[in-house]
């Protein structure tokens, strides 16, 4: 079932085009990583999906128009699109009361279980919490909502490594328990890589890469090449090359593994390296054309 469908999704701010009419198709049960440099349009795309911003073109989320049906939509779509948006005056207990009072799919016990793993006191006001604690509280509230779509924009910004790890583990175990669709935008690519089913690169308002992780693994190969085989490796047209210690690391697209095995050790490239390769490649092509 299609959960998110966009056709020609476009957004401009004054004269700046944030999204150049992107097409998007995300099904039920996918965990999509939205990766892109600053200003690529990630937040704009996510804000459009959750009904926070108007747009041109067509966009349906769970069959609804997010901009005009936000309040119905957010029963099934929960999101964190920015850090530190919890009102500073609210007490932790009040936030729990409020969400429990108005959200039919909020599991208060679950939220309290999340909070019990932190040092957040329920009597505390948000303004008394550290940045990381505010994010923890927000995540506890959002992760306790049994939503069909979860949209996260830099959800772990400001959190320590332990909690970030714990968060993604929870995200994954929740997901395995009850499939939903997750769209997550982040710069911490390494951390999300192992939970993603799909990866989407956004650059200057355009989707420049859109593949499933299986596809990525089948299609892209990273090879550690010893200097004496470098010339032969370069002849196979790598899409990226960088210097390692005592060897070069080359990324190839669509080459037979047997062919590449002759020139060095094979690995699947990390999303971060692939991203750099694709974005630079795109820039190079743009420069050539």
């Amino acid at each position, binding site marked *: 079932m299609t959960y998110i469908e966009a056709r020609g999704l476009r957004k401009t701010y004054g004269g700046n085009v944030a999204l150049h009419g992107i097409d998007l198709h995300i099904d039920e049960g996918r965990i999509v990583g939205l990766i892109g440099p600053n200003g690529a349009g990630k937040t704009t795309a996510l804000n459009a999906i959750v*009904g926070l911003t*108007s747009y041109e073109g067509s966009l349906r989320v769970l069959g609804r128009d997010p901009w005009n049906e936000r*309040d*119905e939509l*957010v029963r099934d779509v929960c999101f964190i699109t920015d850090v530190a948006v919890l009102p500073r*005056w609210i007490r932790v207990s*009040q936030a729990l009361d409020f969400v429990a009072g*108005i*959200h039919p799919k909020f599991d208060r016990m679950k939220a309290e279980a999340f909070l019990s793993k932190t040092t957040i006191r329920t009597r505390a006001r948000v303004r008394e919490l550290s940045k990381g604690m505010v994010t923890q509280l927000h995540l506890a509230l959002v992760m306790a909502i049994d939503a069909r779509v979860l949209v996260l924009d830099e959800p772990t910004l400001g959190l320590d490594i332990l909690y970030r790890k714990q968060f993604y583990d929870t995200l994954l175990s929740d997901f395995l328990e009850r499939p939903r669709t997750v769209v997550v935008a982040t710069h911490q690519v390494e951390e999300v890589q192992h939970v993603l089913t799909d990866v989407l690169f956004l650059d200057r308002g355009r989707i420049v890469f859109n593949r499933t992780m299986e596809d990525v693994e089948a299609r892209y190969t990273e090879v550690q090449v010893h200097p004496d085989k470098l010339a032969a490796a370069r002849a196979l047209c790598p899409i990226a090359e960088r210097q390692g210690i005592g060897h070069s690391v080359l990324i190839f697209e669509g080459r037979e593994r047997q062919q590449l095995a002759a020139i060095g050790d094979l690995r699947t490239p990390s999303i971060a390296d692939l991203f750099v390769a694709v974005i630079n490649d795109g820039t190079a092509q743009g420069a050539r054309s």
Partner: protein
Amino acid sequence: MNTLYWSVRRELWENRSIYLAPLIVGGVVLFGFFIGLAKLPARVQAATSENMHQVIESPYVIGAMMLMATQLVVSIFYCLDALYGERRDRSLLFWKSMPVSDLTTVLAKALIPMLVLPLLTWAITVATQTVMLSLSGAVLAANGLDASLVSSHLSLSGIVWYNAGHLVAFHGLWYSPLYAWLLLVSAWATRVPFLWAVLPPAALIVVERIAFNSRVVALLLQDLFMGGAEPSGGVPGMTMEGMSPPADFLLRPGLWVGLALTAALLAGAIRLRHSREVI
């Protein structure tokens, strides 16, 4: 209904001045009255039959007016911040992630000055005046005077009904276009909502005065603000009875025009809540 209830509660959590301010003013009124109690027997004995009613009632009238002025001031500041503050501190992004419609949110915010604050002020005014009433009865009795003197001029039911009438009619209904206008400005302004709320009407008055030498806008605004105090010429002549709405209150076209204006302004505020983004 449930979302409206929680939305109103959330406003009370955020704006504790809604109940703290009238409570404090009620306390101040009682404190002043308590000090004045010492002179009450002397004042009552000195009063003539003509001015007896006024001598007895005046602290009640002043107390009620203090509380009602507080209600108005709290309402004005509340409304100016209601839809502006959440955009400025970006908490709008959190509220919008919750399944509460813009309609419900704006209605909840409008209910605070139009219903919640008048009811609270009424309860606090009645409580304050009831304490005053029993204290003065006790003081009079202790001085060998007729303890029922006060209650013969101002009964408990009078306190309940005069205050209720004034608050519902004037502070709830009559002032509602003012609150709705402030909410609209609050939903629209990206800076200094107070100036945006005050300057356009002021400019209209000035332009009208200079261009046409007429005062239609000024009189309309004066009517809005002074509608509540119209029957009297200020505090000295004001009585508790005079605070309650005149018999023809519901028949005044100004009331219904005002309510229609309120609906239109609130509809505008709801649209702006939908489309405005964080500042």
